[in-house]
C-alpha cells in the first residue's frame, strides 16, 4: 500500500509539472505586449510593458521565474485589474465551489433516481421519455441551456431571478445550479440505467428473485448497490467538465466566481489571469482524480497491484 501511495503521488507530481509547462505557454501570439497595447502604441511603452511582464528575458529564465513564483503561491499580477491573480482566485473560490458542489449533488441524486426509474420498466413510455430527455440534455451545451432557462424561467415566467449572487437571496442560486447540473445529470441517468440493466441480468439477481424476495428489495438492495460503481466513476470524471462549465454559467448568470473572472480576462487577453484560472482548474482536477484513484486502490486490491 505504501509503495502504491508513493508511486501514485510521484506520478501526480510529474503530471502537475507538465500541466504547469502547458499553462506557461498560454499567451497571445507574437509579442504579447504589442497585442495588449494595440498596433498604435509607441515603441517605448511596448518596451516598458515587455519589461513589466518579464518578456525581455530569455524563455527559460521566464519559465524558471514562473515556476519559482508558483511554488510560493504567486500566480502573477492581472494586467487588467493590477491585482494579484492568486488573491482574486482565492476570494472567488466560495462562489464557484457553492455552484459546482450543489450542482454535482443535484445531478448525482436526480440522475441516479431517473436512471433507476428508467431501468425499473425498460422500453416503456417512462423509459423512453427519460432517455430522450437526457439525450437532449447531453446534446445542448451548458451556455445554451442557460440562455433558454433565463428565457423561460427568468423572463417569461419570472419564477427565478436570472442574474446575481446569493447575497441577494438564495433564489439566485436556483437557475445557475440547475443549468450546470443538466449535462452531468443526463449522463449519470444514462449510465445508471445501462449499469442497472447489466446487473439485473446477472445470476445472483435471479437467485434473489427465486428466493422469493420482493421486487423492490431485489431492485434496491441487490441490484442498485452493485450498479453504482460505474456511476461513481462518472461522477468523479465529470467534476472537471463541471468546473469548465462554470465558466459559461457564471458569465450568463453574472455569478461572481472564478469562471466569471476568467471570462472577463479572456475578453481582454489578460493572460496572467487566464493562466491562473486554467492552472487552478487543472490542479483541482488532478487532485480530485488522484484522490479517487487512491480510494479505489484502498477499496479494491486489484487496482493497487496493476
Amino acid at each position, binding site marked *: 500500500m505504501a509503495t502504491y501511495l508513493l508511486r501514485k503521488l510521484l506520478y501526480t507530481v510529474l503530471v502537475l509539472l507538465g*500541466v504547469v509547462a502547458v499553462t506557461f505557454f498560454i499567451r497571445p501570439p507574437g509579442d504579447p505586449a504589442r497585442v495588449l497595447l494595440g498596433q498604435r502604441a509607441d515603441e517605448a511603452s511596448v518596451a516598458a510593458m515587455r519589461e513589466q511582464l518579464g518578456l525581455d528575458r530569455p524563455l527559460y529564465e521566464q519559465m524558471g521565474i514562473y515556476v519559482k513564483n508558483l511554488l510560493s503561491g504567486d500566480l502573477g499580477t492581472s494586467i487588467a485589474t493590477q491585482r494579484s491573480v492568486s488573491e482574486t482566485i482565492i476570494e472567488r473560490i466560495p462562489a464557484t465551489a457553492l455552484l459546482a458542489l450543489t450542482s454535482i449533488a443535484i445531478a448525482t441524486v436526480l440522475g441516479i433516481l431517473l436512471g433507476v426509474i428508467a431501468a425499473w420498466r425498460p422500453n416503456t413510455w417512462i423509459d423512453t421519455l427519460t432517455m430522450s430527455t437526457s439525450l437532449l440534455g447531453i446534446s445542448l451545451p451548458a451556455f445554451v441551456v442557460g440562455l433558454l432557462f433565463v428565457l423561460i424561467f427568468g423572463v417569461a415566467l419570472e419564477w427565478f431571478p436570472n442574474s446575481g449572487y446569493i447575497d441577494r437571496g438564495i433564489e439566485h442560486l436556483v437557475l445557475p445550479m440547475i443549468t450546470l447540473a443538466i449535462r452531468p445529470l443526463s449522463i449519470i441517468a444514462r449510465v445508471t440505467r445501462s449499469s442497472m440493466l447489466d446487473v439485473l441480468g446477472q445470476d445472483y439477481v435471479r437467485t434473489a428473485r427465486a428466493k422469493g424476495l420482493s421486487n423492490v428489495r431485489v431492485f434496491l438492495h441487490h441490484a442498485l448497490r452493485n450498479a453504482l460503481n460505474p456511476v461513481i466513476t462518472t461522477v468523479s470524471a465529470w467534476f472537471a467538465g463541471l468546473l469548465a462549465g462554470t465558466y459559461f454559467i457564471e458569465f450568463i448568470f453574472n455569478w461572481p466566481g472564478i469562471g466569471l473572472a476568467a471570462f472577463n480576462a479572456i475578453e481582454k487577453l489578460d493572460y496572467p489571469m487566464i493562466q491562473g484560472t486554467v492552472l487552478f482548474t487543472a490542479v483541482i482536477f488532478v487532485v480530485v482524480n488522484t484522490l479517487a484513484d487512491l480510494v479505489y486502490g484502498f477499496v479494491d486490491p486489484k487496482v493497487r497491484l496493476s
Partner: protein
Amino acid sequence: MSTVLGESPRVVAWRRLKKNRGAVIGMVVLGLMIVMAICAPLITPFDPSTQILEYSVKPAMFRGSVLYKRNPADASRPSIIAVSSFEERGDSVTYLDPAGEPYTIAKTNLMSTDVAIYHDEPLFVLGTDRFGRDIFTRLIYGMRVSLSVGLISESIALAIGILLGALAGYFRGWVDDSIMWFVNVVWSFPTILLVVAFSVILGKGYWQTFVAIGISSWVDIARIVRGQFFSIREQEYVEATRALGFGHVRTIFRHMLPNAAGPIIVLSTAGFATAIIAEASLSFIGLGVQPPTPSWGQMIKDGYGYIALGTNWGMTLFPSIAMAIAVLVLNVFGDGLRDALDPKTSQR
C-alpha cells in the same frame, strides 16, 4: 437474426445500422444538413453579410419591401433600399423610407426599369439580427462553419490520437510511459478550457479555431486506440506479421489499425458533436471564428443581450435549436453506429 457465413463485418454492420430507426433518421438529417451547407447560396434569399439597417431586429415572418439600386462597384450585387411605399413617376421613382422621409431616384439608377425586377418584398422567415441581416441565411451559412469545424478538427484529432495511441499500444515500455504521461497532462485540462487556451495562443480566426479544437480533442482517441492495440497485439495474426518480417509501420497501419476501427469510428462521431459545441462556445466568448463570418455561437451571443429585455428571443433560440439538432443527430447516429459495430449486442 442469422448471420450468413462469409459476410464481411462491414456488410453486417451496415445491415444492423439500417434496422436502427434513430440512426437512420440521424443519417438522413445529417445528410440533409451537409447538402444544405454545400448549397447554401442556392437556398438562401440573401448574402450572409447583406445588411438592411432599416430592418434590424425584426421578428420571424417579417416581410420587407425593398428597391434594388444599381451598384457601380459590383454589378452582380445590387444595393438595397428599404422602403415603406413607392410610386413610379415617369422616368423616376418616388419612395418613402421606413422613417417616412420622401426620396426620388431616377429609374436609370435602379437595377432595371421594370418594377418586377427593381422591387421586391422579401420574407425574413426567422427575422433579422441587429444589423438587419437575415437570420435564416446566416443560420445556413453558420452550418457550413459548424460542419467544417467538426470535419477538420476531428480529422486533426484523429491523426494525433491514432498516431500516439498506436505507438503507445504497439511499442509499450518507455514509449508507452512517456506518451501516457503526455496524455495525462493534456487530460488534466477540461477540453473546453484547453480549446480556449490554444485559441489565446494561436489568435483569433477561422483556421486557428479548427486547429485549437483539433489539438485539444485527441486524448480520448489516443486512449481507446492504445487499449485496442494492447489486446490486438496478443493475437496470432500480429505474431504472423512479425514472423513474416513485416516492418512496424506496415503491421500497425495495414494489419492492426483496421481491426481497431469500430471504436474509433464511434468515438469520432461523438468528437464531431463535441467540436461543434466547442466552436460555438468559443464564438460565444468572442474567440473563434470572427465576424462577419456567421457562426452559431456568435449569433447566440448577439441575441443574448435581447433575452434579458424579453424581446426578439428568436435571435438566440433559432441558432440554439439548429445546434441542438446537429448535435442530437450526431449523438443518435453515433449510438446507432456503436450498437451496429459492437459484436456484443449482436443478439438483439
